[in-house]
C-alpha cells in the first residue's frame, strides 16, 4: 500500500478485509450506508440514533451487526483523518482506492465528502480548545434611589452577569459598571468586532 493522505500511521490489518466486504454491497446499499455515516459525522452527539440506524440497516440487508460495526469503524478512519488534514475529495477518493475500495464506491463517497465538508470543518473548528469561554451574558440596569450615606442619589448603574465555562463547570461573574464605563466598554467591543472582521 502506498502512502496514504489521511494518516501517517500503518492501517490496521482488518481494514483490507472490511473494504473487500464493502465492495460486495450493491450501489444502493452502499449509498444508504454512506448516508447513515454522514448523518452521524455531522451530528456526532447523536450516538443512540446512529446505532439504531446501523442496526436497522443490518436487519434490512440481512447483514450481521457485529461485522457491520467493524466495517463502519474502518470506513470512519478516512473521514476523521481527512478532516484533521483538510484533505480534498480527490485525496479522499485516492485513499479509499488505495485501501481496496472499488473506484465507483470510492468516487461516490468522495462526492458525499465534498458536499458535507463545510459542515464538518465548522464542527471541527467548533471543537477547538477555548479558554474560559463566554457562554452567556445577562444584564440589568437601574437607578440607585438612595443609600445609607446619601438620601437621594439618582445615579444609573448597569449590572452584567457573565456566564463563563471554566473547564467543565459554569461560573457566574457579576460586575457593575457606571454609565461612562458602559459606553467605553461598548466602544472597545466595537473595535474588537472591526478587528475580528478584518481577519475573517
Amino acid at each position: 500500500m502506498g502512502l496514504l493522505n489521511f494518516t501517517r500511521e500503518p492501517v490496521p490489518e482488518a481494514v483490507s478485509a472490511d473494504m473487500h466486504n464493502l465492495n460486495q454491497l450493491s450501489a444502493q446499499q452502499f449509498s444508504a450506508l454512506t448516508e447513515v455515516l454522514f448523518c452521524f459525522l455531522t451530528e456526532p452527539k447523536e450516538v443512540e440514533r446512529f446505532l439504531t440506524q446501523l442496526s436497522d440497516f443490518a436487519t434490512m440487508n440481512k447483514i450481521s451487526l457485529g461485522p457491520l460495526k467493524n466495517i463502519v469503524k474502518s470506513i470512519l478512519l478516512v473521514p476523521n483523518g481527512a478532516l484533521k488534514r483538510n484533505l480534498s475529495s480527490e485525496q479522499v477518493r485516492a485513499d479509499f482506492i488505495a485501501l481496496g475500495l472499488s473506484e465507483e464506491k470510492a468516487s461516490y463517497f468522495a462526492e458525499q465528502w465534498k458536499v458535507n465538508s463545510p459542515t464538518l470543518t465548522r464542527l471541527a473548528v467548533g471543537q477547538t480548545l477555548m479558554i474560559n469561554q463566554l457562554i452567556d451574558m445577562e444584564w440589568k440596569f437601574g437607578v440607585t434611589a438612595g443609600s445609607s450615606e446619601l438620601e437621594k442619589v439618582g445615579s444609573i448603574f448597569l449590572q452584567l452577569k457573565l456566564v463563563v465555562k471554566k473547564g467543565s463547570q459554569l461560573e457566574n461573574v457579576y460586575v457593575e459598571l457606571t454609565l461612562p464605563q458602559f459606553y467605553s466598554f461598548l466602544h472597545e467591543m466595537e473595535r474588537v468586532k472591526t478587528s475580528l472582521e478584518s481577519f475573517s
Partner: protein
Amino acid sequence: MAALRDGDFAALQILLKAPSKDAVRQLCQECFSSPPAALGPLAQRACPGLAVSAEEAEQLVSAVHNLTRHVVYRGLTAPEDILRLFPENFHQNLKNLLTKIILENISSWRNEAQASQISLPRLVDVDWRVDIKTSSDSIVRMAVPTCLLQLKIQEDAALCGNNPVVSALTVELSKETLDTMLEGLGRIRDQLSAVANK
C-alpha cells in the same frame, strides 16, 4: 450613616479650643472621611492639638463626623439649611465657620460617598487582544480569529478598606459570541437613550 444626637452640638463647642481655622478644616475633612470604626484612633491623634481629655476628643470627633455625614445625607446645599441645624445658643462665629467649611467640601464629600457606596464588584479596566488560531488537535490547518478579553474587577470597596482586591478574569469570545454580546449592549444603549430622552 450617623444621625445627629443631642450631645453633638455641645461637643462641637470644643472646637473653640482649636489652634486655627485650618485645624478645624482639617479635622472636619478627616472626620467625614473616617469610617465610624476608625474614629477612636482619630480622636487620639486630635487630642494633643486641642488640649482636651481623651473622652472630650472622642465626643468631638464623633460629633463632627455625625454633622458632616448628616449634611451630606440630606443633600443640603444652601447655607440657610445648614445654619438652621445649629441650636439657638450655639457660638455664632463657630457656626459660620463650620457652615463655610461644610459648603466648601460638600460636593467632593458627596462624590466620596457615592464612590464608596456598596455595589457588586466593579469593572475597573478592560483589555483585549485578537488572536488567529492556526492549528489544533481537531484540525491541522485553519485561520480562525478569536478574541481574548481581560476584565479587571474590584471587589466591594467597603469590604476591602484600603486594600482593594482586584481580580482579573480572562474570557475567550468567538466571533458569534461577540456579535451576540454587541447586540445585547446595543439594546442597553437604546434603552438608556429612551430613558434619557423622557
